């Protein structure tokens, strides 16, 4: 589905974003794309969708070279940006303008989504609040029914009930043919939905593994005191939450926040554990 080989990318030559990045993404998955601020999560989504061009190497999306921006590729991609400005039109006008780019657009679903999010058909989109605009883009994006769905911080700005709704709509939209990539800092919002997890770090991928693989190699336990073998530990009410190498085949629930903290604090070890 998406294949990235030996990718180099920079905005400024002195500050490379990626050096020799490799990645292979497969349909039927909801990837959670994590990484510290400025590590290049949005950049990666833009490279995949052909909005940015590699400095070196190749990004192929649906077997097309992404930077060629073939219509056959673009009609299969919906990209929900983190920052957006909506035009001064009502939603009917917006649909007339943009829906025709997506051959599998589902108008009936769109009507359902607009309804559950409680969006007004009479108002202009530019008059919506920021959160309502986000809901509109989510509704529209899910209705495009594209095989590739790229979402940059989709839960930012959503109110509490809408986060639950979004989770439900996302679970409904996911299927074996679709590849969904969600860049997020709000891992708790999507904890049970994202799998595999991708962690980006300075110039590289630190981890790109399924929850199952992660739980085979690491365990997440609560102890009275921080253990010696802990890769990361955090004080909580019930004890100390520890991430440790899983040497005794313990089956535990992967806590994505702890995983992330353990990863960025033990970069070399994680590369050894997961990439090699």
């Amino acid at each position, binding site marked *: 589905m998406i294949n990235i080989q030996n990718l180099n990318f920079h905005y400024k030559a002195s500050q490379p974003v990626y050096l020799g990045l490799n990645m292979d993404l497969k349909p039927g998955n909801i990837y959670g794309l994590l990484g510290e601020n400025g590590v290049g999560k949005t950049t990666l989504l833009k490279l995949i969708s052909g909005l940015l061009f590699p400095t070196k190497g190749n990004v192929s999306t649906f077997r097309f070279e992404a930077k060629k921006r073939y219509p056959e590729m673009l009609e299969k991609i919906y990209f929900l940006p983190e920052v957006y400005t909506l035009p001064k039109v009502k939603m009917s006008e917006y649909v007339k303008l943009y829906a025709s780019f997506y051959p599998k657009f589902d108008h009936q679903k769109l009507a359902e989504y607009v309804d559950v999010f409680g969006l007004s058909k009479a108002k202009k989109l530019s008059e919506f609040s920021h959160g309502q605009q986000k809901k509109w883009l989510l509704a529209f994006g899910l209705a495009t029914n594209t095989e590739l769905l790229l979402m940059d911080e989709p839960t930012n700005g959503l109110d509490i009930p809408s986060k639950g709704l979004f989770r*439900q709509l996302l*679970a409904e939209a996911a*299927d074996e043919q679709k590849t969904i990539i969600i860049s997020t800092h709000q891992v708790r919002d999507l904890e*049970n939905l994202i799998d595999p997890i991708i962690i980006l770090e300075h110039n590289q991928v630190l981890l790109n593994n399924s929850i199952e693989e992660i739980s085979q190699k690491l*365990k997440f336990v*609560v102890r009275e005191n921080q253990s010696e073998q802990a890769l990361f530990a955090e004080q909580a009410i019930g004890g100390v939450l520890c991430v440790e190498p899983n040497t005794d085949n313990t*089956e535990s629930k992967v806590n994505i926040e702890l995983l992330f903290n353990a990863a960025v604090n033990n970069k070399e070890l994680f590369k050894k554990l997961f990439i090699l």
Partner: protein
Amino acid sequence: MIYETDKPLYLQIVDYACEQILLGIWKPEERVPSVRELSVTLTVNLNTVARSFDFLQDKQVLFQKRGIGYFVEKEGLKRIRDMYKIEFFQKDLPNLFKKMQKLNVSIEEIVLEYKKCST
């Protein structure tokens, strides 16, 4: 000492499914919700639910009819009871004993309470 490990999500879904069978909501030899339906109801990843169903099939609690879906095994309920009984004696009961010792609760007190509860 470890005193708590959250069960992996796929086993939590296994618990959910078994609970449905124990409560008689999912009945022997009847079709159960599809992997997709359950993924939406519980808002968890499709692949996670698929893994839970694989596990339940392995334990002969569910079986699959190709192209139709998953069904509860005739003996599914019994197998679940056996499965949880083992867990009860290996995990729940020792934990309870530890707590009783900590709080100085005698077995006689427990027997008394048990009799009250079951009459």
